[in-house]
């Protein structure tokens, strides 16, 4: 019996040890939820509230879990907001030319992956810092979109209610489909990150580049794949974004940049590479979304929303830091 109990305890402590960073994020989320519940129980016990949250949450989750790979590899991608725009534009263009919307999604995915590939090539082959080159890429793509669209948006209201629409952002038994997509993406990311050779090698690359090269890991390919993965995630988000807003506008995806990065960092993936957590990023994305809706419900002016983003980000980072020192 005693042995069994000790085994239980060690396995629990192992679990905590392994998921320390994600758990801290979970703690932040719970504390926040409790505060909101106390301030305004009516709103926060209402399922409608969560429906509103789920509308945008899926996009944060998808982008944040894909970003983990790039950040763990020791790079950063600041161009995904523009990729969302470009992929959305691709979808709209396909629709306009009268082709099937599903084909549009396929094209959007290809475009997203292609831009990710270009990012990866610039960074690994030319050896330019990812921080800078993806800023450049971001400008380049956004410029292209503006040139091509002449700054005009395109409405896709006519899609509402079609099977295509329902397949991406409708609801099944009251549960939003876009969250199912997000869930699927998270499962894929966790499998890749924790159980696949890709995750194992990308962690080594971000941890010790030199030694990864010496041990025969194909660093360039691994890093490029990470950028491609972000590109694909951006394309999925672009489809959701366009359908949710029922309009494509040339600036779409612009506001996602820092907020997604913040979700990743709040979630406990540090910026120096080598370690990261997908679940943490998911929780980080939840935190961001809950603040978004919670602020108004808690009776604070909407204008202070970003102030609370900032506050939570800094507090969560300090929490992670303290946690680190202890171990």
């Amino acid at each position: 019996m005693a042995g069994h109990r000790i085994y239980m305890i060690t396995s629990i402590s192992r679990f905590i040890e392994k998921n320390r960073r994600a758990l801290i994020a979970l703690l932040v989320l719970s504390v926040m939820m409790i505060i909101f519940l106390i301030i305004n129980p009516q709103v926060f016990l209402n399922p409608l509230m969560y429906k509103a949250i789920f509308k945008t949450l899926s996009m944060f989750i998808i982008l944040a879990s894909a970003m983990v790979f790039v950040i763990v590899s020791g790079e950063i991608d600041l161009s995904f907001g523009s990729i969302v725009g470009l992929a959305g534009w691709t979808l709209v263009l396909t629709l306009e030319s009268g082709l099937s919307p599903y084909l549009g999604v396929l094209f959007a995915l290809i475009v997203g992956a292609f831009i990710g590939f270009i990012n990866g090539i610039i960074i690994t082959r030319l050896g330019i810092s990812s921080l800078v080159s993806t800023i450049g890429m971001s400008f380049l793509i956004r410029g292209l979109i503006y040139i091509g669209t002449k700054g005009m948006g395109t409405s896709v209201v006519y899609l509402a209610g079609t099977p295509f629409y329902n397949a991406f952002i409708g609801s099944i038994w009251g549960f939003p489909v876009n969250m199912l997509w997000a869930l699927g993406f998270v499962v894929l990311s966790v499998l890749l990150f924790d159980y696949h050779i890709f995750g194992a090698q990308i962690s080594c690359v971000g941890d010790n580049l030199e030694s990864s090269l010496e041990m025969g890991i194909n660093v360039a390919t691994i890093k490029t794949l990470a950028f491609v993965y972000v590109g694909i995630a951006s394309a999925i988000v672009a489809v959701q974004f366009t359908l949710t807003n029922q309009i494509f506008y040339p600036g779409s995806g612009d506001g996602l940049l820092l907020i997604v990065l913040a979700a990743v960092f709040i979630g406990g993936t540090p910026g120096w590479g080598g370690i990261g957590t997908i679940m943490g990023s998911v929780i980080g994305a939840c935190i961001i979304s809950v603040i978004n809706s919670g602020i108004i419900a808690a009776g604070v002016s909407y204008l202070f929303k970003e102030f609370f983003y900032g506050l939570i980000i800094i507090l969560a980072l300090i929490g992670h830091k303290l946690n680190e020192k202890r171990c």
Partner: protein
Amino acid sequence: MKNKFLELKNISKSFGKVSALERVNFYIKGEPEIVGLIGDNGAGKSTLIKIISGIHTPDCGEIYINGKRMENWSVVKSRASGVETVYQDRALAMQQTLARNIFMGRELTSIFGFVKSKLQFAEADRLMRTIGFTSKVFASDSAVVNLSGGERQGVAIARALYFKANLMILDEPTTALSLTEAQKIFDFIRQARKGGSSCIFITHNIYHAYDVSDRCVVLDRGKIVMETDREHTTVEQLVKDMQKIAQNNGKVREGINNARS
């Protein structure tokens, strides 16, 4: 007499105007042996091993494996021939688990590239015990950053062991180690020789080299200046020889300084 496992003939290498190696001849016997490579900073030790492990390409000279001349020597070819280099602990990914480090770049995967984590952990455990790290403090899923210097070295050696190297190259494995930990490394090297692996052992420390090596090779300013079998010398003799070399060195330096001024 079996073929020599590895033979370098007339190897030269220079970086810009600095010549690191000049017409060096070096070999590893066919039967397992431990070779101590001794030399001062800048003597060309690390250049030599980097050429053997394929990281540097020599400017001229030939490389033979089992008597067969190798063209376009590279890291991949060196690996394929069973040469395994254990760099100092900087070669580890500190935040990753012990198992992940051992299998870095050669993960054991099942279909679709999923990593067999349990098998890796079990193998890592077994390997660390074989080498002699039986402490229960660390587990194969703890991060390398939590291990001691000797244990870290052990992780690097376990890599070589698992992939059944014909020749292991240990780059200063005993610096930054405690005496007992260094002894453990020596024990392991001897064991590995019994198991059929040769070993090149690089060090500043003559006593360490003498302790464990069958043969000592002394490098100085890009040339092999001395080569003795352990049976034909004593450690005192070795130290004396080394001092002579160092004095020569000093004279040359004085000469250079005089010429300059």
